[in-house]
């Protein structure tokens, strides 16, 4: 009984629902990854281990792609790590929001990817940032690994996720999550600068590097427009209101 009402309470939390939407979208690509990995000589066990342990979609696709086109293992790891490096920047950001034991932060580090960082930092209420991060991280982790296993075991039964337009779903979803940052000038500068730098770099450097270079836009925006205003809780009463209680419950339950 208690469990069921707790589940209902979790599902009523907006960022938990958003985390599930992100997870389902990612899950379709995971099936594609599972198929691709197995058809390129990875065992089912290796394929599943990769999604569990590497847990960075773009890197995994890159590693398997390089190997399938005849590249060396060193080249595969190299191009995969170029795509994984941006998670270091996300770690810097999320470390300012996620407090607690070393074990908890070590688990958070593993879940630090595009989607979890976006869902965390995309929250209007600063009290929801940590909950949003865990919802995005766990939602994507669960569906990414289920999808990988389905693809690896089931083989080529699935169609192309791009035929469903899912390659456009991520940029659009990220727009929704960047929108709160566009309310202040430094956030606008960082976003426009990041997009311009990355697009300019695309033809010139290997995939992955344009996103890393975009981090420079954050430094430029800070120098030009200063730090964005410190976020304030949108909850009006000083005491812990019901909503942020839910948020904390979600975060606590997720990290347990």
């Amino acid at each position, binding site marked *: 009984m208690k469990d069921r009402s707790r589940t209902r309470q979790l599902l009523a939390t907006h960022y938990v629902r958003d985390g599930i939407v992100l997870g389902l979208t990612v899950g379709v690509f995971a099936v594609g990854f599972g198929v691709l990995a197995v058809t390129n000589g990875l065992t089912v066990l290796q394929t599943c*281990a990769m999604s569990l342990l590497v847990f960075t979609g773009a890197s995994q696709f890159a590693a398997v792609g390089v190997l399938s086109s005849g590249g060396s293992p060193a080249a595969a*790891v190299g191009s995969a790590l170029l795509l994984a490096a941006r998670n270091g920047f996300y770690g810097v950001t999320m470390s300012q929001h996620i407090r607690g034991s070393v074990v908890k932060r070590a688990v958070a580090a593993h879940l630090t990817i595009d989607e979890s960082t976006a869902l965390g930092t995309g929250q209007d209420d600063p009290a929801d940032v940590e909950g949003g991060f865990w919802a995005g991280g766990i939602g994507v982790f669960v569906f990414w690994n289920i999808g990988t296993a389905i693809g690896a075991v089931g083989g080529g039964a699935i169609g192309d996720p791009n035929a469903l*337009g899912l390659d*456009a779903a991520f940029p659009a979803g990220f*727009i929704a999550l960047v929108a709160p940052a566009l309310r202040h000038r430094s956030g606008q500068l960082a976003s426009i*600068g990041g997009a311009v730098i*990355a697009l300019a770099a695309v033809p010139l450097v290997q995939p992955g590097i344009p996103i890393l270079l975009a981090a420079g836009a954050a430094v430029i925006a800070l120098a030009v427009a200063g*730090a964005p205003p410190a976020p304030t809780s949108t909850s009006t009463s000083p005491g812990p209101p019901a909503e942020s209680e839910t948020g904390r419950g979600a975060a606590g339950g997720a990290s347990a």
Partner: protein
Amino acid sequence: MSWTTLLLLAAGAYGFKAAGTFGLARFMSGDRARGIGALLPPALLAALIAVGTLSTEQSLVVDARLAGVAAGAVAVWRRAPFWVVVVVAAVVTAALRRLTDGALVLT
């Protein structure tokens, strides 16, 4: 792929995440650190949006994705729920691809 390669990749990927989470943040403190922390996600996510919408590998392209993402952006502007934004972008992109038989690509 050998298990050694796979584990190296896993270690490297976690290394970046952990370096950000435990290492780099220690050298930064105060307002400047908070500013950088707050501005990195919009800079990187906007880059991902741009690259994910307008490029394939190392070429800049305009194709059905742009229409889908634009439709998604309108949904964001109209304060649609998150799942609606994602679905609108996917459906518009898929429909346009089907209508044009995937031929709509400008490089």
